[in-house]
C-alpha cells in the first residue's frame, strides 16, 4: 500500500501583475489585476513506504507547491492527495505527528538561543517524554555529528551545523514521511555529504519515506532510487535515475586525445564537437552510432587516448528543461 498517493493533483493560484512605471503602479494601487498561474497540473504518482524519491525540476516548476499540498499547507485546486492514510489539508494531529517538512531556506530554530531550547519546545509540542527526548537527541546528534553543538546559540553555528540542527529539530518526533525542500542549499561539499549520509541512515534505520527536492544532482544520485521530474507544473518522468538518462540522453561523450590538433571542420565529420582544446576533443555521439563512430575515429585519426563516458546528469536534465522537448 502506498504511503503517499497523489491523483490528478492540480494547483492554480492568482498572482498580482503590475505594469512597469508610475502609471502601472497607480493602476496597481486602485485595481489589481491577477493572473492565474497553473503551478501544478494533473500530477499523479504513488510512493511506497520506505522509498527515497528525488523530486527534480527547475525553479518554479511546481516542486515546492506539490510539497506544500502533500504536507497540507495548501489545498489542491483539484485532485486527491493522501499521505499516511490522511487527507493532509485537514492537518489532524495524528497526521502532523507522522510527517515533517524541512525547508532549506526557512529556519524554525530560535536564533539567539542554543538549539537544545528549541528542541525542548518541539518535544513539548509533540508530547515526547523527557527520557525519550534525551535518547532521541543523543541518537540524532550522533548521527548528525552534532555532539556538543546543541548548547551553543544557533547564530554561532556554521551554516552546515545550523542546517543539521534544523533537520534534528524536524525529526525529533520521528516522522514516517519526510518532505525535504533543498536540504543542502548553500552547504559546502562536506556538509552536503554529511546531510546525505544522515538521510540515508535515517531512512534505513526507521524505514522512513523520503521525498526530497534538490538542485544538487549529487544529492539525488546518492540517495534516490527513483526520481520524479516535473516541468512547468507537469510530471514528465517517474522512474529510476538510469532510466531517466536513457530516455532523455541517449548519447555518450567520447573524449579523444590526438597526436596533433585538427580543425573543427575536419572533426565535425565524426560527430557533434562539444569541446575542442588543442589536441583534446570531446564529441557527443548518439548511442546507436557509438561503436561505428569510435572505430572510425580510431581508424582515421592518430589517437593517443580515447574514453567514453556518460554525460553528467546535470547536463542531461538541464538540456531536458531548456529544450522543453520532453514528451512522455
Amino acid at each position, binding site marked *: 500500500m502506498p504511503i503517499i498517493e497523489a491523483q490528478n493533483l492540480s*494547483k492554480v*493560484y*492568482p498572482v498580482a501583475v503590475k505594469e512597469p512605471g508610475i502609471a502601472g503602479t497607480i493602476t496597481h494601487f486602485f485595481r489589481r489585476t491577477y493572473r492565474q498561474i497553473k*503551478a501544478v497540473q494533473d500530477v499523479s504518482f504513488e510512493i511506497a513506504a520506505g522509498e527515497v524519491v528525488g523530486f527534480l525540476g527547475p525553479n518554479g516548476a511546481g516542486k515546492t*507547491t506539490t510539497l*506544500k499540498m502533500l*504536507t*497540507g*499547507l*495548501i*489545498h489542491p485546486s483539484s485532485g486527491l492527495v493522501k499521505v499516511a492514510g490522511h487527507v493532509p*489539508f485537514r*492537518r489532524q*494531529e495524528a497526521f*502532523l*505527528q507522522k*510527517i*515533517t*517538512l524541512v*525547508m532549506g531556506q*526557512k529556519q*524554525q530554530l*530560535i536564533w*539567539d*538561543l542554543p538549539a537544545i*531550547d*528549541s528542541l*525542548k*519546545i*518541539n*518535544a*513539548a*509540542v*509533540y*508530547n515526547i517524554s523527557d527520557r525519550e527526548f534525551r535518547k532521541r537527541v543523543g541518537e540524532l546528534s550522533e548521527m548528525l555529528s552534532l555532539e556538543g553543538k546543541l548548547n551553543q546559540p544557533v547564530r554561532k553555528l556554521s551554516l552546515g551545523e545550523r542546517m543539521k540542527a534544523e533537520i534534528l529539530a524536524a525529526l525529533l518526533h520521528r516522522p514516517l514521511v519526510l518532505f525535504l525542500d533543498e536540504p543542502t542549499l548553500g552547504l559546502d561539499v562536506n556538509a552536503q555529504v554529511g546531510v546525505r549520509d544522515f538521510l540515508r541512515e535515517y531512512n534505513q534505520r526507521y524505514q522512513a519515506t523520503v521525498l526530497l527536492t534538490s538542485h544538487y544532482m549529487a544529492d539525488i544520485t546518492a540517495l534516490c532510487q527513483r526520481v520524479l521530474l516535473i516541468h512547468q507544473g507537469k510530471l514528465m518522468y517517474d522512474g529510476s535515475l538510469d532510466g531517466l538518462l536513457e530516455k532523455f540522453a541517449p548519447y555518450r561523450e567520447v573524449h579523444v586525445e590526438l597526436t596533433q590538433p585538427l580543425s573543427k571542420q575536419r572533426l565535425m565529420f565524426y560527430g557533434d564537437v562539444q569541446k575542442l582544446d588543442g589536441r583534446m576533443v570531446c564529441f557527443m555521439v548518439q548511442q546507436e552510432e557509438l561503436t561505428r563512430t569510435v572505430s572510425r575515429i580510431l581508424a582515421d585519426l592518430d589517437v593517443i587516448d580515447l574514453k567514453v563516458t556518460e554525460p553528467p546528469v546535470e547536463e542531461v536534465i538541464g538540456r531536458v528543461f531548456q529544450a522543453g522537448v520532453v514528451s512522455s
Partner: protein
Amino acid sequence: MMKRLIKTTLTFLSVYYAYMVEYRAELILWVLAGSLPIILMGVWIQAAQGGQFGLTPVDFARYFLAVFLVRQFTVVWVIWEVEREVVEGKLSNRLLQPIDPVWHHVAAHVSERAARIPFAILLVGLFFILYPQAFWIPSLGTLLLFSFVVILAFILRFVIQHTFSIFSFWTERASAIENFWFLFFLFLSGMIAPLEVFPEPVRTVVLLTPFPYLINFPASILVGIPVNLTQGLLSMIGWIVLFLGLNRWLWRQGLKRYSGMGA
C-alpha cells in the same frame, strides 16, 4: 492531558523567558521607551497647580505612575511578529506542528513580562525617591484586584492586536492597522489624560469603547480613583469574547486565503 498541558506551558515559558533574557539590554530600553506617562505626569502636575481639575498634583503623579505600570504589564507586539511570519513564509513550519501558532506568541509575551518586571519596579522605586510626596502603599485587596484587572487588560490588548495581525493574510502591512488604532488608543485609553478630566458626555461615549479598559480602568483602581467596577469588568469580558470570536473566524478565513495564495 492536564499533565501534558502543564508541561507544555512550563517548557514554553522557560524557553521564551531564556529568549527574553538574552535581550536584557534592549528590555531596559523598552521599559524606558514606555515612560511617556512620566513626561505627561510633569505636564499635568504643572497644570493641576491651578486646581481646576478635581485632582491634586499628587493624584496626577500617582495616576501616571499607575499608567506607566499598566503599560509595562500590557505591552503587546504580536502584530509585528505575525506580519513577519506571514510575509517571510515562516508560518508554514509553525502550521505543521500540532499546536496553534499563537501559543508561541502568548508564551513570548508572558515571559517577557517576567523579564521586564525587575526593571519596572526599579523605576518605580526611583520615582518615589525623586518625588516622595506621591508615595503610597495600596491595600492588599486593591493590589489583588489591580493584578486581576491588569491580566484582563493584557488579554484584551493581546486579543485585539492579534485579531488585527490576521489581516496580514490579506495585506503585507497589517501593522498599519495597529498604527491607526494606536492614535485612538493614545487619546481614549487615558494615557494622555485621565478620563476624569474629560467632559461628562465624552466620557460616557468613551466608556462604550474598549480603550479606557486597557489603561484608565486598571490605573484608576490602583490609585483609588472611583470606578464602576461591575460595569468595567463586564465590559472587559464582553470585549474579550467579542474579539476572540472575530479572531477565530478571521483566522480560519485567513488560513484559507494563505493556502490559496500558495502559502
